[in-house]
């Protein structure tokens, strides 16, 4: 059994190519059925996100990974009716341990556009679930993918790769956590409706913020957005009255002057009995007077501040990524060793079955000439044959298990022997 994959990612292809090669979610099941022919390709998983497409497969034919890879290219070529030249130019392929490593790196978010972003692990998990539903995964890919998820978890736990925010909208969450610790029970107030501000508000809600108030000069817009985000629309005139309720204010409007003054915040803080308030200004020009930052228990950040935090976190992440790579190396080695172990057991099993079958076929052949045997005699014969099989195979198995360096060589020779034999048998039957 071998693992092969063909893929395309943001590193190798522009978005026009990626979107042409993407697999629609609803059609992945069909695609998997087309991919897995149960001959050259025995198992398959398709990961398709906006940044990458990975067609991962297992082939039972150890020495034909190249054939399996070209089969994958053919499959993509036929499925998307995309010309071969484009595919060759933008796709990459991996096999065996290189494939394992690639899958571990992708799942652990080391190959992502934003290294360490957490979504990819979930996306790979979904892809694997879909493959399970389509019954296109068997023993090998199940083991591989589960290992990949465990590795991703390990990388996340043991390195700081995902610990800090690298996008502006996530930095707002990070800052809120540094003030409130836990966002449960906090109220977010969204002023205006910039895309970035909406995204930040959504992240805050995802991280536990309980309530969102939406303020807009045009009340209808506030109502529409409130419906979308399950929030509460607030009239612009009521802004001052409602400000004390807000723990986190996110502001993004087209106004050219300061909309929130130190005086307003001072009054809000009094009403709040000095419970801290975090104000995030994503508008350019700024809408929140930076002088508010001089008040105790009020914290103001503008877009430049967020940017510089994101920048600093990004370089921190790059350092952590190096540690993650070391973990991946280790895990790939472990997985490869476990696979070889599994291979060895499979070969040993096949060998034992073969010899045992031989012995019992001979018994059946001579059965007639033995005449009537009592049950005891029958048993004695079986015990004897089993003993001969064991004694015969034992030194060979021992040799196989003990030969560390020659291991793979021996293994390949044995596998070839049985593999070819298997094929011949099939032909005989046909």
């Amino acid at each position, binding site marked *: 059994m071998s693992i092969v994959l063909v893929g395309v990612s943001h590193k190798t292809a522009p978005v026009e190519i990626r979107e042409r090669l993407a697999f629609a979610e609803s059609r992945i099941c069909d695609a998997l059925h087309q991919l897995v022919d149960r001959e050259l390709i025995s198992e398959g998983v398709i990961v398709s996100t906006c940044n990458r497409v990975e067609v991962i497969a297992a082939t039972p034919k150890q020495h034909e990974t190249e054939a399996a890879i070209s089969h994958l290219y053919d499959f993509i070529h036929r499925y998307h009716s995309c010309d071969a030249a484009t595919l060759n130019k933008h796709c990459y392929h991996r096999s065996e341990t290189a494939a394992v490593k690639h899958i571990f790196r992708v799942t652990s978010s080391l190959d992502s556009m934003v290294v360490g972003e957490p979504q990819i692990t979930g996306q790979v998990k979904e892809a694997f679930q879909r493959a399970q539903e389509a019954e296109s995964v068997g023993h090998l890919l199940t083991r591989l993918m589960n290992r990949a998820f465990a590795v991703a978890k390990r990388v996340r*736990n043991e390195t*700081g790769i995902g*610990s*800090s925010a690298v996008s502006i909208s996530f930095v707002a969450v990070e*800052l809120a*956590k*540094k*003030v*409130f*610790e*836990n966002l449960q029970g906090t109220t977010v107030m969204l002023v205006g409706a910039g895309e970035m501000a909406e995204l930040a508000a959504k992240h805050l809600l995802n991280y536990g913020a309980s309530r969102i108030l939406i303020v807009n000069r045009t009340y209808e817009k506030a109502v529409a957005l409130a419906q979308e985000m399950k929030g509460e629309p607030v009239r612009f005139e009521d802004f001052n009255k409602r400000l004390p309720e807000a723990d986190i204010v996110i502001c993004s409007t087209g106004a050219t002057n300061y909309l929130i003054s130190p005086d307003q915040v001072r009054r809000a803080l009094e009403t*709040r*009995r*000095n*419970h*801290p308030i975090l104000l995030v200004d994503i508008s350019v020009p700024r809408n929140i007077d930076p002088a508010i*930052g001089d008040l*105790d*228990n009020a*914290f103001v*950040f503008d877009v430049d*501040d967020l940017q*510089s*935090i994101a920048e*600093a976190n990004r370089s921190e992440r790059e350092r952590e990524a190096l540690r993650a790579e070391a973990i991946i190396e280790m895990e790939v080695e472990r997985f490869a060793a476990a696979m070889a172990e599994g291979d060895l057991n499979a070969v040993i099993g096949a060998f034992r079955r073969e010899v045992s079958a031989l012995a019992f076929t001979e018994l059946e052949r001579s059965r007639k000439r033995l005449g009537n045997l009592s049950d005891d005699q029958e048993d004695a014969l079986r015990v004897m044959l089993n003993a001969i099989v064991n004694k015969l195979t034992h030194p060979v198995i021992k040799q196989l298990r003990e030969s560390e360096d020659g291991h793979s060589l021996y293994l390949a020779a044995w596998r070839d022997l049985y593999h070819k034999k298997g094929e011949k048998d099939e032909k005989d039957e046909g």
Partner: protein
Amino acid sequence: MTILLMIALLLYLAGAFYSIIIFATKSDRPGRELIALIGAGFSAHTAAIVIDWSYLGYYPIVNPKDVSSFIAWAIVLYYLVMSSRYHVRALPAFILPLVFVFTLISLLLPDPGLPLPLVLEGAISTNTITQVIFPVHVTLVIFSYAAFIVTFISGIMYLVQERELKAKHFGAAFQRLPALNTCDEIGYRSLSIGFALLTLGVVTGIVWNNQRDGRYWHNDPKEVMALVTWFIYLFIMHYRLTAGWRGRRVALLSIVGFVVVLLTWLGARALGGYHVFG
């Protein structure tokens, strides 16, 4: 029991190192190992105190050596109780080195042995009420100090974290220290607990005075300082409850309060007076 105290000291040292490493590497390791280490140290320490008590026949907290050991014990107990509620990685990294230092001081200080100071002699042997009140007084006051130490540490963490946020400087401290609200909550909770204990401690002290020699108040430096401490913490509590003071202001005041605690505890000794033990 010196040997048990030494075992406790080593376990506290291991705990201090462990927590500092967790703090420095931002590791997400669960604190179970740490709690086990500290719990073992605490058990050895408790055994040492209990054995001393039964051996001496009186509450073994009469001299600075005893007090150092007991305050370390109280801080650990306080931390163990608190850690079930707050999982703040930064806190043990500050608390445990202090625990280690107090335990070490206790081991290094010479044992003054007998005779005991005169006032204590009376307290231990005269009548049952003073025999009970003295240990209660000492225990309450030392536990209040342990709580105030935690308030002090939270206050410092708050101020450092607040400065990072206000200066928009997100360095090592920013990532490692807990959120402002957490610092504030731990600080205030410890302050309330410490204040309640100190109040009871002062009251039992006054009662003990009267039992011993018929006078409630001696104008002893330590008595006066204790009262000043009490008023400072009362002041903070009052404004917290009435005006909602919190954050920076409370953090600063609790640092001031702790400095006065230190003066009461150590400084009053230098000023003389009869209340010189511990």
